[in-house]
């Protein structure tokens, strides 16, 4: 690799990664509003009208202790397969792999406040 190519990549790569993150966050926000906010609340804190009438209150994603317990894969499983016996539906027939990964990206970065170097990948063992 020439010095010039290296320098070009040095400037382009972060921009590309940042753009991808922005796209993922934007898509994820749309999915969150359409599928999640009605129960988990606009701010992800579980404060919604529904929480008063469903069996188990929706999770509060702003709770730092809970955030530590939720791995990406655990969140992916919950979104795809739901939580039996609770109001959390299984969205595996309705959301694409990309939509699921984007909404996880959005929740983890914007609601949980976690540091993410890159968007959550749609590639996952659960789909294989």
């Amino acid at each position, binding site marked *: 690799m020439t010095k010039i190519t290296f320098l070009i990549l040095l400037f382009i790569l972060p921009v590309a990664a940042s753009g991808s993150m922005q796209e993922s966050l934007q898509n994820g926000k749309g999915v969150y509003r359409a599928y999640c906010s009605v129960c988990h609340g*606009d701010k992800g804190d579980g404060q919604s009208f529904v929480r008063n009438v469903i069996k188990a209150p929706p999770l509060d994603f702003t709770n730092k202790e809970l955030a530590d317990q939720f791995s990406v894969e655990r969140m992916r499983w919950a979104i795809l397969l739901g939580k039996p016996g609770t109001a959390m539906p299984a969205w595996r027939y309705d959301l694409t792999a990309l939509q699921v990964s984007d909404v996880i990206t959005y929740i983890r970065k914007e609601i949980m406040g976690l540091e993410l170097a890159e968007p959550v990948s749609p590639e996952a063992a659960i789909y294989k």
Partner: protein
Amino acid sequence: MRVSRYNLFLLLICCLLSINLLAAEAKLQPLELEVFDIGVDHVKVLESAGSKLYLGTSDGFYILDTLTNDALLLDYDNGLISKSIHSVTQDPDGKTLWLGTYGGGLAKLVMQEGTPKTEIYNVRHGLNDSFVYDVEFDKAGNMWIGTWSGVNKISGDINERANWTKYTVKNTNEGLSDDWVYAVEIDSKQRIWFGTEVGISLLEGEQWKKWDHNDGLGAGIDIVRKDVHDVKTALRGNHHEAQISAQTAPGANYNYNPNYVVAMELGPKENLWVGTWGGGLSFFDVGTETFTNYTTRDGLPSNFVLALQFDKEGVLWIGTIKGLASFDGKTIKQHYQYGGLLSRFIYSLTFSEDGSFWVGGRKGITRIPVAAHD
């Protein structure tokens, strides 16, 4: 006695006021009521079956024995995921009830001795989403479900996902007015009517038609402006904002939306009566496809119409957020002033086999006996 012109003028004004008050009182009909206090509030649905009365509330599903006044409550302990019940439908098989719940999917109750057996159907089975507002059966036995994410039709075994069909704004090329579907009605020609948050849609065979405020649904803001007020902050939030921003009716907001079909009922001549959110009562003549709107100017207690029910004489009973009214096709009469309904905020109405009229509201249920109602 000398009477001045001024006194004569005052006397005339007093006479006119008295006549007006008498005319207003004549429109208010007294009713004999019985109030049932079983500690139930927010009675969203009332459905009668023999001596049983089914109550869908925000605290669960109640089965009230109207002969003994014993009530059985079903909630989380009985398998429900949500205790907020928005619809109760009797299956044609005569043994099953279907409950539409708020956030807990569709509940199937198999009636048996003692406590009914419960099964939940949700997104993984094929339900569009877990917010279910209405369920109806057509003559062929197909089940039609109105949800917050469009309509489901189930043909055959409900446990087979392949038997679930989805109808959304997108996959019907906007034939379905909106994905937020609150009411389903099926006429004798097996045409399916959907009341949504953006107007009315009709599915006839494979063909879709739709109507909204621009076609005449709901009274205009200039007519109802005085009755528009902050009625329900629960509608706020990101999930609802998209709905409000999608509205085309002038002046539409959280507190006035003439396109929002809250209640819908087919009349004796199979025309459509629609209760709207702030736009009053709307009559849709199916033959001419024209709307006639009725508001507080015509005698309604409020322009927020949440419940509609016809009696055996063809009189339409109207539940609003400010009381009860009836409409015989000529005159709208208000019924809340005398007799004291338990709640003026009315969610639900039904008639039981003995002719009693039941009114469900924010505060419990009220029974209007046969004689009083007649």
